[in-house]
């Protein structure tokens, strides 16, 4: 057994080789990070390439077709054929486009999608490129830069469809960024750190994935993540039936495919963050006990990497599944979901999580109950504490559903305009008080 697994120890071999040429500091701070960056960029690019293939296959199976079958066995080489086609296509620039902005926008898009991978922990030990103390904030801020690329692409194309797509996407992404940022706070209350590796090790030391404590947080994060990526059913910025292709209407060849790649990379980013925050990242029960604890370190790292990839792929499959199942939202529905449902859900989730943590702290030590094992570095709960927390998570779904349906009871009434007419927003200076809407609705 052990000798077989020695195969999985190339890092040590490379490390020894590198130490012959460089000093230890250079190897640790410069050479290894560069090797890791190269590996991750290549892997993500290939992964994105095959995500397009997977999407076509999945959509085909859902519609009782076969999908790409001609290039290679089962069409496996189709993505490479597509990439080659796009590379050799002519790179068109519209006549009155703002040339520099037009040419630069795809690069911003790709850079914003790829930089985020620097902080994502793919596995323990050498599965991490870097681990910064503002990890999650870094991810959110860099992905918020991605919207700039869409706006600039739409504006600089000098085309009305592209501009409409850009305006839609900026309104959409600014709205959904809020709920995305708010939805992660619940999970952070347990992890007590923004470092992504810290979040994973918090779940490892607790032996619970945060999705059990935070079902609402996961739901809110995933929905706003899909909206952030402009994926169906939230793909209004590139709604084919209305806007030709939205913000990238005027792009062709490699620049268009850069946008395409950025879209898939951004999907991978959101799935990776959701995996790290809610699905335990690279942590899986019993893996540590059977590998690392028995001395198989390299095997531990490799299995953790595979676990991470499996979780990531599952979430990515969810994207495709939703895309080929749900129809596109109308614009007003999109804004309704963002502002009237998702943001209140995230806020209610924060309050409920705070109440749950306070309850667990208050119960600790009452009648000999023990709920908390440690508060530092992360919140560690005993079995009782976990049960209470999971109970709160499940009850929280019903509480939130009740709160939200109360808030939004009238949101979809047909005679909304009539109600609004009776509330005076202007001319209050005449001394007429604002009148409440009538209780009866026709």
């Amino acid at each position: 057994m052990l000798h077989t697994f020695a195969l999985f120890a190339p890092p040590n071999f490379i490390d020894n080789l590198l130490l012959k040429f460089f000093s230890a500091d250079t190897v640790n701070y410069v050479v290894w990070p560069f090797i890791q960056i190269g590996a991750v960029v290549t892997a993500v690019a290939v992964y994105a390439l095959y995500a397009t293939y997977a999407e076509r296959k999945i959509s085909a199976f859902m519609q009782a077709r076969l999908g790409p079958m001609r290039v290679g066995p089962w069409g496996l080489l189709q993505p490479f054929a597509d990439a080659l086609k796009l590379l050799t296509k002519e790179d068109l620039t519209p006549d009155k486009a703002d040339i520099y902005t037009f040419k630069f926008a795809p690069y911003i898009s790709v850079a914003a999608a790829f930089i985020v991978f620097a902080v994502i922990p793919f596995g323990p030990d050498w599965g991490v490129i870097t681990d910064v103390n503002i990890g999650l904030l870094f991810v959110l801020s860099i992905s918020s830069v991605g919207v700039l690329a869409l706006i600039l692409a739409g504006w600089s194309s000098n085309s009305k469809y592209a501009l409409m797509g850009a305006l839609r996407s900026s309104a959409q992404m600014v709205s959904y960024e809020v709920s995305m940022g708010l939805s992660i706070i619940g999970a952070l209350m347990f992890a007590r750190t923004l470092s992504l590796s810290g979040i994973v090790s918090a779940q490892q030391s607790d032996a619970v994935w945060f999705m059990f404590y935070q079902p609402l947080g996961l739901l809110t994060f995933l929905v706003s993540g899909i909206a952030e990526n402009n994926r169906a059913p939230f793909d209004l910025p590139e709604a084919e039936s209305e806007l030709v292709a939205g913000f990238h209407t005027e792009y062709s060849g490699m620049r268009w495919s850069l946008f395409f790649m950025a879209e898939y990379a951004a999907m991978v980013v959101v799935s990776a963050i959701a995996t790290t925050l809610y699905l335990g990242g690279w942590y899986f029960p019993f893996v540590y006990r059977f590998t690392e604890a028995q001395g198989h370190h390299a095997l531990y790292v490799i299995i953790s990497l595979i676990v991470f990839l499996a979780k990531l792929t599952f979430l990515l499959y969810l994207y495709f599944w939703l895309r080929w199942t749900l129809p596109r939202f109308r614009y007003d529905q999109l804004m309704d979901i963002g502002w009237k449902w998702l943001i209140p859900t995230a806020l209610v989730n924060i309050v409920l999580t705070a109440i749950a943590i306070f309850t667990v702290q208050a119960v600790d030590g009452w009648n000999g109950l023990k709920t908390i094992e440690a508060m530092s570095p992360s919140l560690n709960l005993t079995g009782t504490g976990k049960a209470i927390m999971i109970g709160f998570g499940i009850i929280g779904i019903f509480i939130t559903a009740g709160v939200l349906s109360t808030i939004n009871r009238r949101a979809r009434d047909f005679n909304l305009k009539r109600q609004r007419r009776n509330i005076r927003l202007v001319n209050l200076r005449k001394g007429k008080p604002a009148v409440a809407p009538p209780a009866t609705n026709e």
Partner: protein
Amino acid sequence: MVLNGWEAVFFWVFSVAALVAGLLTIMARNAVHSALFLISSLVSVAALFILLGAEFIAGVQILVYVGGVMVLFLFVIMLVNVGAEERGREPIFNHTAQVTAAVIFGLLLAGGLVYALNQGYKGMQASDRDKIAAITDRREAEQQNMPSAATGTFRITKDTERVGGSLYRYASLPFEIASVLLLVAIIGSVMLARTVKQEASADDVDPEVLKEAIAAEPELAKLESANE
């Protein structure tokens, strides 16, 4: 921040980039280009924050300014027609009085900055060296207690926690006042934007109020008839 080695290189690169981008912000003819240069300037300043060890501020700077404020800026610039300035071929610095005032205030600001820096440096030198050494030692000891990052090459600091703690514990009243101020600004802008005329054109106003408004301003009657 210690200005030597690679840190000095990064400092000079980012500070020069911030200054040049700031200059280009006011010199670009196209409003969108101005916004882009402003974004570059903000990103460079965020990088300088990282060099100062204030990662949280840097992250928030990008999140709020680049990802939020500047996106809204671009949104507005695209909706508003700003063609007049772009088409003109006249020199940019064409108002002598403005340029003179800007130069004078800029020089005053620079002078003030140099004076403040000198005073601060003198004060730092005058204060007890032992005290500074003690603080440095304590910081280093704290650093040793912090959890190590997953790569093992540096430590995860508690800056974010500290910012949050002081913001919500010791500065909660100013924080709440600031948020109320923002709320007032939002409501105020809605009130300013929603005039009777606009509401009438969207057929979204109480008929009684509209009658009174028409009595004051007969123009509105046309909008009303257009709706029917």
